[in-house]
């Protein structure tokens, strides 16, 4: 055994290795087969925060999917005679419940349409960098050696490259289309996953179960697919939710500089950026989209944290732990 002692900064990663010594037995409780199927949903219901978060995300997702169709052209219909209408004025119909913007468009409709744009930028951006960065990192960490070194240096380059410059250049040269924004955000965020995946994979490749697979003559790619990726995935997914937040913010910063999503398309970031000059006269223009960003990312993070624990066989128990207040004591069996 020449493994270094488990370090604090090592990520818990499935299996027995996570459980601190002495608590291994925690992982032992054997859930019956039956309750395994339903339990993910049940576990979710048990955690009020996670439930709320899931509801928020489902709502956001549905809005993004069906909202724009429902809104028709409401989001772009301008009315210069009714600009900056304050929110919660109920006389104007539901479309203006959150007020109107500086061109008299319905805030509700714009928020809804922006949901789709925002997600269609943030999700692919996160997805692409997640997939590329993770696979690359896993591969580099698994093979170690020169492949690892070169990969890490590339990550260094991207990390210390002024990402804004990259954005500005690409967006200036190739016009600020949503696809280009996605591309830039994806490329600049690859190192995040690359580094994490590499570290995890480098650690995993020395694990015994990987050695075991090698003794069968399993090919490296098969080992990566079977043993490394499933273990690394939860960590990377958690990371991805944090990144989701980052990407939305970055998109809004691009909008601030005028090179984000271009009108008449609208994203939350763009709405916040354009609404900033009305902060004193029409706060709702930037407040509501900002709130949408915050709520979505918080919900995503809460759910990711929950999911991470829920899908980890060795940590799952934490979720089901009764709260201290509500202990139902099992009456001690009378023995004498």
């Amino acid at each position, binding site marked *: 055994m020449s493994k270094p002692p488990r370090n*604090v*900064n090592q990520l818990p990663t499935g299996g027995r290795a996570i459980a601190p010594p002495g608590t291994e037995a925690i992982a032992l409780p054997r859930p019956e087969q039956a309750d395994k199927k339903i339990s993910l949903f049940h576990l979710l219901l048990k955690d009020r925060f996670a439930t709320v978060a899931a509801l928020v995300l489902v709502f956001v997702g549905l809005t993004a999917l069906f909202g724009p169709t429902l809104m028709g052209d409401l989001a772009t219909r301008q009315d210069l005679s009714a600009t900056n209408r304050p929110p919660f004025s109920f006389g104007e119909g539901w479309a203006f419940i959150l007020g109107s913007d500086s061109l008299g468009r319905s805030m509700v409709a714009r928020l809804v349409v922006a949901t789709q744009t925002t997600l269609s930028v943030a999700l692919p951006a996160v997805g692409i960098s997640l997939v590329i960065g993770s696979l690359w990192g896993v591969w580099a960490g698994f093979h170690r050696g020169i492949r690892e070194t070169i990969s890490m240096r590339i990550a260094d380059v991207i990390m*210390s*490259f002024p990402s804004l410059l990259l954005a500005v250049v690409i967006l200036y040269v190739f016009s600020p289309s949503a696809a280009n924004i996605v591309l830039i955000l994806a490329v600049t965020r690859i190192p995040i996953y690359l580094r994490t995946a590499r570290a995890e994979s480098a650690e995993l490749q020395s694990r015994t179960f990987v050695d075991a697979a090698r003794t069968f003559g399993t090919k490296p790619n098969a080992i990566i697919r079977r043993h490394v990726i499933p273990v690394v995935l939860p960590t990377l997914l*958690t990371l991805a939710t944090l990144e989701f937040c980052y990407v939305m913010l970055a998109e*809004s910063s691009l909008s601030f500089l005028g090179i984000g999503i271009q009108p008449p398309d609208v994203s939350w970031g763009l709405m916040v950026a354009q609404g900033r000059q009305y902060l004193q006269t029409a706060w709702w223009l930037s407040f509501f989209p900002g709130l949408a960003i915050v709520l979505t990312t918080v919900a995503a993070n809460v759910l990711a944290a929950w999911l991470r624990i829920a899908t980890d066989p060795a940590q799952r128990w934490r979720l089901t732990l009764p709260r201290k207040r509500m202990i139902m004591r099992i009456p001690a069996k009378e023995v004498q």
Partner: protein
Amino acid sequence: MLTFLRRRIVSSALPLLVVVLGVFALARLTGNPASLYLPLNATEQMRADFTEKNGLDNPIWVQMADYFGGVLRLDFGESLRTGESAAAMALRAFPATLQLAGTTMLLAVVLAVIVGSWAALKPNGIADRISSFISMAAASVPDFWLAIMGIWVFAISLGWLPTSGVGGPSAWVLPILTLLLRPFGVLVQIVRGAMVSSLSEPYIKLARSKGASEFRVVTRHALRNAAAPALTVAGDLAVGLVNGAVVVESIFGWPGIGKLMIDSILQRDFAVLQAAVLLTAISIFILNILIDLGYAGLDARVRPAGKRPKSSKAASVAEPKERKVHVQTAS
């Protein structure tokens, strides 16, 4: 330690070079700045002269060779816009960013350590939930929005702080507050995660068995161990601050390197852009080395080439470990 430094410097020099080359090439993709700097009715001849004078008609590698030739002579070129030495402009702007980013990071780390530790004491407790909610929300507010909001509330409505500009300590408050939130939010999560796992390590129990008070256990034993992952992330965040304070700098009129960079991009002021990028890249590179050193200072296990390990087991342990990030968030 020296070997380590030497190796670190050698291995980072190449990426550094690639960054600068990349910036050089990318910047030239943005087009010829002739019309920006020439009079409206400039003739073709004037354009050609301008292009030639600035060497923009040469193939890119010739331009690069010229540029690096100049760099070796410590000549970083002149600003197209102001005619000043590009190096002077970058060096002038840099301290402003550094001070701002440095102070911000310091505060973010201190606050995050306090809040994160507090949250970690009772995982999933009410303090944990609240702090994790607040920190996540903090990390997801667009900074420019926050900046303008801050100006509105603290400078205009309350009149406590100046709106912007550089000056006395009060001028620092709003920019720092704005920059602070994201690093703070992210770090709270990291510190909390690291503290939760640190607090469940056996050495915590060992400390308790010696009669150490809760305070001592947390501050002496858990924190020091939790510091390493936090340090890594703090480093990445600091890089982000140095590189990405543009928005805050331009709102608050803070004459930093971020603002200089974006201005020189917008003005196609290549020499200044390159000088600024080179400077930040070097600083990021130094920052990374400092973090490695700090990491080694915190945890002897990653101290490279220190004392010769005594036993065989130690030998394999003493390999410098790649820094790792702890992604464990509250549920």
